[in-house]
Structures are given as structure tokens and as C-alpha cells.
């Protein structure tokens, strides 16, 4: 337990906060985006914004796989379960996200669809083995963090000849999202880079981005002191005029990442020509699909289902929130029509979503 409490010490936090204050010139206002939804969650849970000077503004990024998945992709999953009689296996996070026509995986389940909450693709594979007469589809979502476990399940299914297993592949890539944020015209001075993604990819992944965009990227862990230290590293780079990739999370992340996981991803996946993101639009080379040799495990090809883009609820500001254009409280329906009990947008459902984090931990800061 000491291992955790060491990363939450109040006195060290105050020292770091004072150092951040000292590092930011009095006449500057720096906007720092934490890419990852897990970071957003930690920032809100530990009340970190209270410790930072007003000259440092944290902007919440798109690093929440549930939030960036567009409605049309969720509709595909519901279609598979409801009309193709497949067992659809999903992470619990997705279950309550609103889809088209006031549906969700949860409401589809209530209407008789066989939808099962699993901890990961291996559990879905186990179901496929246990029920060989049924088609079993794993609803694969996530950034580079979860893609290797999906790849492993597909490879295992191929090696052991499991013919009734497939995946609805929605794995997306971090660099495309980072680039899209800046191209979308949001002013960001520096980035706190994703810790879990980087355990797989290594910090090297961000080097071309930092060089091209000339923005500092500091990969960080998830404890409050990790985040404060990373913010300090970003502001020091900004003060020095540097734009480098630095690694605050050295206890888990290396420059080169996990070579085994990377090789597995390279073998099983290939780049999609383009992929539609919620908020960020349709971007080339921003997501993965199964390589041709594993095509028979691709649910989209196996069931011949197409993708249709669907507009978000017109009152919902999720699209602007994942881009860092708006904060949750800028959304008209935040905390009124849209709450965790009655979510309108994905950002309120996912535990990694900015709106859920603000609602759970930070809504006392808003004026009554």
C-alpha cells in the first residue's frame, strides 16, 4: 500500500504545485491537454486543479475509447446482436451508451438480444468455445492499450480453429487523434501523454508529433503526483522553448515499448484507409482492422454489415468536448438532461469520459 500512498503525498504535491507556479512566467497562460481519460479522472478525483495556478489550464483530451466511438459503430453492434442472432460480448463501459433511435446495448438486451459483459476478448473466446453452435462477436474498442489483447485472441482463435468467433474491430490510434486536435484549431501549448498506451507503443510514438507540431509531450502515470510532476515537466519545457518527448512514467514506460505486443499487432491488424471518430471526424490511417489473413474473424466482413454515419443528439456537446473545444459545463444539457442516470452523450457514460468525471467529482465548482 505504501507504493500507492507514496504517490499521493500532500506535502510533495504542494511542493510540486509551487514549482509549477514558479516555472510559469507571470504574464503567460498555458493550456495543457491531458490526452487520456484516465488522467482526466485522476485530476478530478484528487482535485488537482485546485492546486494549480490559474495560469495553467488543463484541457481534457479525446483519450476515452467509448467517447470517440461514433453512434454508427454502436448501431452495428446492436444490429449484430438483435438481428443476426450473435452473442455480442462487450466491455461494461459500452452497455449504457446511447445509440440510434433511443436504443443502447442495454435496451437491446432487454428486448432479447444476447449481450454479455466481459472483462476482455479472452472471455469472449471462452464463450465461443463453450457454445460452438452460436456466433460469438467481441466488440473490440480501445486505443493501442487494448489492441494487443484483441490481436492475441484472434490469433489464438485461428491457431485452435475456432470458427464461430469474430471481432467488431474499433481499435483506434493515438497519433491520429493528437494531430486532429491541433488541426481542429484548438490552442494547446503542451500535452500530457497517455501512460497506458505508451507501455505498448513506447514514447517513441510521439517523437514525430512533437517535432512536427513543436509541442512538448510528457508521458505520465496516473497517480496525482505523477500528473503534477508531468505538468511541471511540460511547463519547464515551455519556459525553455523546448518541444521534446519526455517520460515521467519511467517505472512502466520505455522509449521502445513492448516489442512483443507491437509485433502481434503488426501481424494481426492492418490500417483502415479511414475511420469515423466522434468529434474528430473521418480521419485516414487512424484505426485498425484485421489483416487479410485474419479476415474471417472480422465481423464486418463475416456478416457483411456496412457502416452508416449517424449524427449525435443535437443538444449533446460530446463532439466538441472530446476535441477540447468545450468543457463539460459548457454543454447545455450537462447535469440537467444529461446525467449518469440519464446519459445523452458517451462522455457522460464512460468512467473515462470528461463529463462523467466532472459530474462525479467536480460539479461543486459550477455556479448554482
Amino acid at each position, binding site marked *: 500500500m505504501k507504493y*500507492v500512498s507514496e504517490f499521493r503525498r500532500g506535502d510533495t504535491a504542494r511542493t510540486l504545485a509551487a514549482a509549477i507556479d514558479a516555472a510559469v512566467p507571470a504574464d503567460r497562460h498555458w493550456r495543457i491537454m491531458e490526452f487520456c481519460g484516465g488522467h482526466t479522472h485522476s485530476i478530478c478525483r*484528487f*482535485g488537482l486543479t485546485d*492546486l494549480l495556478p490559474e495560469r495553467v489550464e488543463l484541457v481534457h483530451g479525446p483519450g476515452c475509447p467509448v467517447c470517440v466511438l461514433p453512434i454508427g459503430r454502436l448501431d452495428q453492434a446492436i444490429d449484430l446482436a438483435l438481428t443476426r442472432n450473435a452473442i455480442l460480448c462487450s*466491455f461494461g463501459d459500452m452497455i449504457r451508451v446511447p445509440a440510434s433511435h433511443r436504443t443502447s446495448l442495454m435496451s437491446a438486451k432487454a428486448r432479447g438480444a444476447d449481450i454479455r459483459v466481459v472483462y476482455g476478448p479472452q472471455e469472449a473466446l471462452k464463450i465461443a468455445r463453450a457454445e460452438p453452435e452460436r456466433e460469438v462477436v467481441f466488440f473490440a474498442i*480501445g486505443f493501442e*492499450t487494448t489492441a494487443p489483447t484483441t490481436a492475441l485472441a484472434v490469433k489464438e482463435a485461428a491457431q485452435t480453429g475456432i470458427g464461430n468467433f469474430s471481432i467488431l474491430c474499433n481499435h483506434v490510434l493515438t497519433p491520429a487523434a493528437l494531430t486532429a486536435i491541433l488541426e481542429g484549431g484548438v490552442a494547446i501549448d503542451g500535452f500530457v501523454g497517455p501512460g*497506458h*498506451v505508451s507501455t505498448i507503443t513506447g514514447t517513441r510514438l510521439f517523437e514525430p508529433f512533437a517535432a512536427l507540431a513543436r509541442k512538448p509531450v510528457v508521458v505520465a502515470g496516473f497517480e496525482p503526483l505523477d500528473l503534477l510532476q508531468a505538468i511541471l515537466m511540460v511547463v519547464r519545457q515551455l519556459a525553455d522553448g523546448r518541444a521534446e518527448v519526455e517520460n515521467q512514467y519511467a517505472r512502466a514506460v520505455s522509449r521502445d515499448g513492448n516489442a512483443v505486443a507491437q509485433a502481434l499487432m503488426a501481424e494481426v491488424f492492418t490500417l483502415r484507409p479511414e475511420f469515423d471518430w466522434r468529434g474528430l471526424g473521418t480521419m485516414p490511417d487512424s484505426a485498425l482492422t484485421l489483416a487479410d489473413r485474419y479476415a474471417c474473424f472480422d465481423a464486418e466482413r463475416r456478416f457483411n454489415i456496412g457502416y452508416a454515419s449517424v449524427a449525435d443528439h443535437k443538444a449533446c456537446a460530446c463532439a466538441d468536448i472530446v476535441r477540447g473545444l468545450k468543457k463539460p459545463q459548457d454543454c447545455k444539457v450537462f447535469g440537467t438532461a444529461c446525467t449518469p442516470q440519464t446519459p445523452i452523450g458517451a462522455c457522460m457514460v464512460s468512467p473515462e469520459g470528461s463529463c462523467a468525471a466532472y459530474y462525479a467529482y467536480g460539479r461543486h465548482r459550477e455556479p448554482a
Partner: protein
Amino acid sequence: MTAASPFSRRLDLTGTVELFHGGGGRAMAQLIAELFRKHLRDVQDGDAALLPPVSGRLAVTTDASVVAPRWFPGGDMGSLAINGTVNDLAMRGARPLALTVSMVLEEGLPLQELERLAQSLAASAAAVPVPVVAGDTKVVERGKGDGVFLSVAGVGVVPDGVTLEASAIRPGDRVLVSGTLGDHGMTLMSLREGLGFAGDLQSDCQPLVDLVASLLAVSGVRCLRDPTRGGLAATVNELAWAGACGFLLDETAIPIRPTVHAAGELLGIDPLTVANEGKLVAIVAPDAADRLLTVARAHPKGRDAALIGTVTDDPRHFVQLKTELGGTRILDWLMGEQLPRIC
């Protein structure tokens, strides 16, 4: 000739619960006589129990238990059911007078386990002490119950002059907890997940009647609640709405055992959102807070008591938590089920 018993043979405890044990026939009568009444000796004859006249307001409550697993370090389904009801009475300042127990048994439950449960019910009631005066048993087919469902109702008497209401809460009041939080919930969660350190965790299941009596002997207690399901988070949020106030709690002042904290980190569960079964939350007048803390700490069930925050004047009824880092955040009701993180 006089028969010693209406049953030709003694109940075979190596057997299991069968449908006819709930059928109203001889088998049910034998189960009641040789298993339940053997341990629960205060159960009265007749269709309803009679209680002696009392002076004071009556308090009545009921509580169902569906806990899994039924046996856990620090307690079991029987002690949980008894203490749950007894503590609900105690939180209104009531002294328990009598309890009733209803059981729904699933066909196939080993009779030996049922006897252990009856023993636990009896021992837990005796520890309060309070008599179990009436009971009922039903049996459902295999697959239609989860072994045992247990319901305990209780009636108690509130002494004149004792009033514990959320409406009495005022801004500036202090929040006292009687000990470490999260012990029961985290013990069960860890057992279910098969965490290796379950042995270091123990449920806090215990009756609080005596502790409440000690606190009420001192004036200044506005309101009492036991933070069971939903933990401290649910209890304080309920109080904020019922008392039309807000709260500011100090995270570093909230007593949590290191093993409970560690289990929470591993499971991704906040100890403040899981059940306690032997702790109370008292909202107390500011000038009585230190005195009540001393009284609580002098009691064996309040050794780890602490003052953890204050009542605020907040029209939005937020429960705010000053974090260990010095920031603030909302402490909200737990939203739905805790789900595994995916990134």
C-alpha cells in the same frame, strides 16, 4: 400411553432441505421443532407473539439479507441479518424489544448449514440481547433461490426525550464516525474476487445498541445513521438531502484500515462506497463534538472513532471531500455497478 414426540425418528441432519420441509406437514413441524426451536428458544407458540406493554414510542423496521458468500471472516448471514435490523432500530434511538425471522430456503440446502445458521441467529440475538419471538419458513424449488434468503423484522421502544432526525441537522454541526470504514464490503468483495489477502480483512458486523446508549447519555447527538449499503458516500448524501444541507469531509480524517485501502486500490473500488455493518455516522452539535468523540473512543465499539467533517449550508446539497492532496472533489453516490477499466 403417552408419546414423547409426534415424530417417529429424529431429524436427520446429514440430509438437505426438501420441498416438503415447507409444505405445512409433519416434516415442516419437525424442522421447526428440532432445528429452529432448539436454538431460537424465545419463539412463542401461536400464530403471533405477544409482547409486554411498554411506555414510549415504538420503532419498527425490517431488513432482508441475500448475502453471498453466507460465511465470511467476522460474521455470517445470520449475524448480518440480526445486526442489520437491530442497528436500524438503534439509529432511531430505539432499544430493541423483539425480532422475527423469515426464511426462504432453496431445496437442496444442507440441513447442517441451516442449523449453523439457526445457531448464528440465536447467538447474535443473545449478544444484543433481544428475543426472536416469531418465525416463518418457506421452501422453493432448486434453482429458484440462492440457498437462503433471510428477512428479520424488529420492534423497539424509543425512550421519551430521545429524538434523532435529519431535520435537526444545522450548518456547523460535526460528523462523527464510530470507526474504520469499508471493512465489511471490502471483505466480501475480496472473497468474491479470490484475492489472497482476504485473511487480513474482516467484516465489522456487530450490534451498536450499547454504543448508541453511551452516546445518547451525552446530549448533542442530532441524528444517527448506519452506513450500510452504498457506504459512507450514500449515507452522507442521503443526510444532505434529508437535512437540507451540505457536507465538507476531510479525506485524511476518515479512518480506513491499510488492508481495506489496498484491496480497494486493487479492485478499483472506493472504500467509502462499500457497506459497513457495525459502524455509525453521528451528526453532532459543534459544542458537543469533542465530548462525544471521547465517549465513543472510550467504548470498545468506538475505539477508532473520528470527527471527519462538518455540515455546510449548501442549497445544492453537495457532499464535498477535501482530498489528501489538498484539493476538493464531490463525494457522490456510487453510480451503478463498478466496472473494469479498459484503458
